[in-house]
């Protein structure tokens, strides 16, 4: 049976469009949100109507008109022209930070955190994440866990690993937002905060003053994803106190590059986010003899390459692997597609490779696709067989009914044989019994 779940990566306004009208209305009560949505604004009217920016209204003369959602209008005006209350306390009340972090270290921190999550998914020993995060991965369908055992990766998880960082981040955030309500968090509040983050300045610190408990929890999760940085501060124990106090989180936080580019959507950020563990340059060389050289020492990248190739040798700065029929088909059996493998190789191609056209040797890309097709020589579809109809009319009536229900899998008119999907079978059978009792 062909079971393949394709990961879908939605972007910002597709997500917003799915929210209920009440949630959207409350969301627009915050200027940052309005500005973020407005920025995405080169759309046609129907999209805006879908986002509840415009309300349909009858004009004089009976024409259909649109009026701007009044809450949206007010807050957008505040956002564009100034005024209203400050979005976020800019940390100036706390004084300059003695332990200030510069942009480079923030970037590095963000990448480290994100890499730990990916390594946890791959199952690298030594990569550990909090229980909350592991639960989120399971809820997102990226990992599965049997009772009492550590979670292991699913085929959707494999596909996720081979995506570029921006897409991964967005997919993950969407999953988080979807489960927010079930965790007792206010969706509107955390979405607003997310939009607010996207407008913050990289390298600047912000204060946690005035943030609700729900938001503070959200901030902790953001910290684990690498979207913000927050120091752990150890309190000095009071002289009379016997037990040391647990480390408290600092009152200031720094948004990282990942957070700021998040709300800008998936496509525009793929060039600005570096691949974890490698910096911006590609590092894989693929030869026409199916040899693969990965110039990296990042455990994560090596684990990803190992998903679809056989490791041969390992040196301090380079790993040599072979792309074989077994290794590729094993990857495909795990749910990765040939296209994903090829995309992975192309996007991480070493600069030397980028000089040739096409970047990857056609023999290799073709062969990977052929190996995938080999597995597809046989496809299996479940079904129920109907034959031995007494007349052509009987056959056609039932065939049309199955077709109408959308469960017709296959038919042979000349021999009066048809195959119906298992889901449709009970309905078709019921229909047939009714027919027989009527005639």
């Amino acid at each position, binding site marked *: 049976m062909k079971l393949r779940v394709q990961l879908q990566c939605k972007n910002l306004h597709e997500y917003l469009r799915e929210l209920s009208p009440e949630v959207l209305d409350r969301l627009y009560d915050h200027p940052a949100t309005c500005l973020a949505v407005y920025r995405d604004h080169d759309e046609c009217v129907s999209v805006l109507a879908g986002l509840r920016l415009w309300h349909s209204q009858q004009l004089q003369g009976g024409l259909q008109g649109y009026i701007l959602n009044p809450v949206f209008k007010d807050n957008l005006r505040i956002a564009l022209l100034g005024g209203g209350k400050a979005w976020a306390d800019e940390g100036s009340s706390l004084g300059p930070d003695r332990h200030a972090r510069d942009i480079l270290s923030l970037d590095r921190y963000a990448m480290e955190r994100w890499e730990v999550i990916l390594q946890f998914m791959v199952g690298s020993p030594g990569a550990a994440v909090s229980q909350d995060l592991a639960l989120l991965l399971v809820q997102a369908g990226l990992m599965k866990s049997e009772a009492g055992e550590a979670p292991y990766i699913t085929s959707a998880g494999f596909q996720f690993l081979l995506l570029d960082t921006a897409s991964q981040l967005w997919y993950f955030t969407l999953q988080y937002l979807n489960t927010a309500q079930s965790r007792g968090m206010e969706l509107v509040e955390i979405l607003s905060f997310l939009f607010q983050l996207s407008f913050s300045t990289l390298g600047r610190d912000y204060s946690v003053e005035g943030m609700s408990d729900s938001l503070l929890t959200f901030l902790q999760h953001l910290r684990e994803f690498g979207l913000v940085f927050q120091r752990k501060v150890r309190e000095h124990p009071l002289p009379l106190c016997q037990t040391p106090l647990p480390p408290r989180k600092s009152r200031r936080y720094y948004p990282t590059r990942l957070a700021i580019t998040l709300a800008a959507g998936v496509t525009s950020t793929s060039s600005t986010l570096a691949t974890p563990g490698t910096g911006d340059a590609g590092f894989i060389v693929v030869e026409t003899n199916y040899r693969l050289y990965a110039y990296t020492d990042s455990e994560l990248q090596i684990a990803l390459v190992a998903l679809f190739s056989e490791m041969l040798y390992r040196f301090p700065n380079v790993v040599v692997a072979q792309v*074989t*029929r*077994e290794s590729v088909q094993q990857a495909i059996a795990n749910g990765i597609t040939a296209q994903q493998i090829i995309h992975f190789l192309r996007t991480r191609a070493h600069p030397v490779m980028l000089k040739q056209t096409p970047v990857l040797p056609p023999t290799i890309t073709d062969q990977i696709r052929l190996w995938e097709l*080999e597995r*597809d020589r046989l496809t299996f579809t479940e*079904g129920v*067989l109907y*034959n031995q109809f007494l007349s052509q009319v009987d056959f056609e009536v039932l065939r049309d009914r199955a077709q109408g229900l959308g469960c017709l899998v296959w038919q*042979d008119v000349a021999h009066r044989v048809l195959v119906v999907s298992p889901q449709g079978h009970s309905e078709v059978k019921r229909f047939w019994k009714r027919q027989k009792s009527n005639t």
Partner: protein
Amino acid sequence: MHDPAMKQFLLFLDEKMALGKKFILKDLDDTHLFILEEVVKTLQERVGEKESSSFGPDSSASRS
């Protein structure tokens, strides 16, 4: 199936009872067969074995 050759191979397996029993319930057309649900996994393995014995780039198994 995508090709008649594959169908012939399956008919062959069925006749020779290679999977332990007959599994083809009905021959539908050149590219479709109706078979027993329980043999699906075994069948896929057998087809996979056949594929690997055909010519292709060196795999680790064939390297000496």
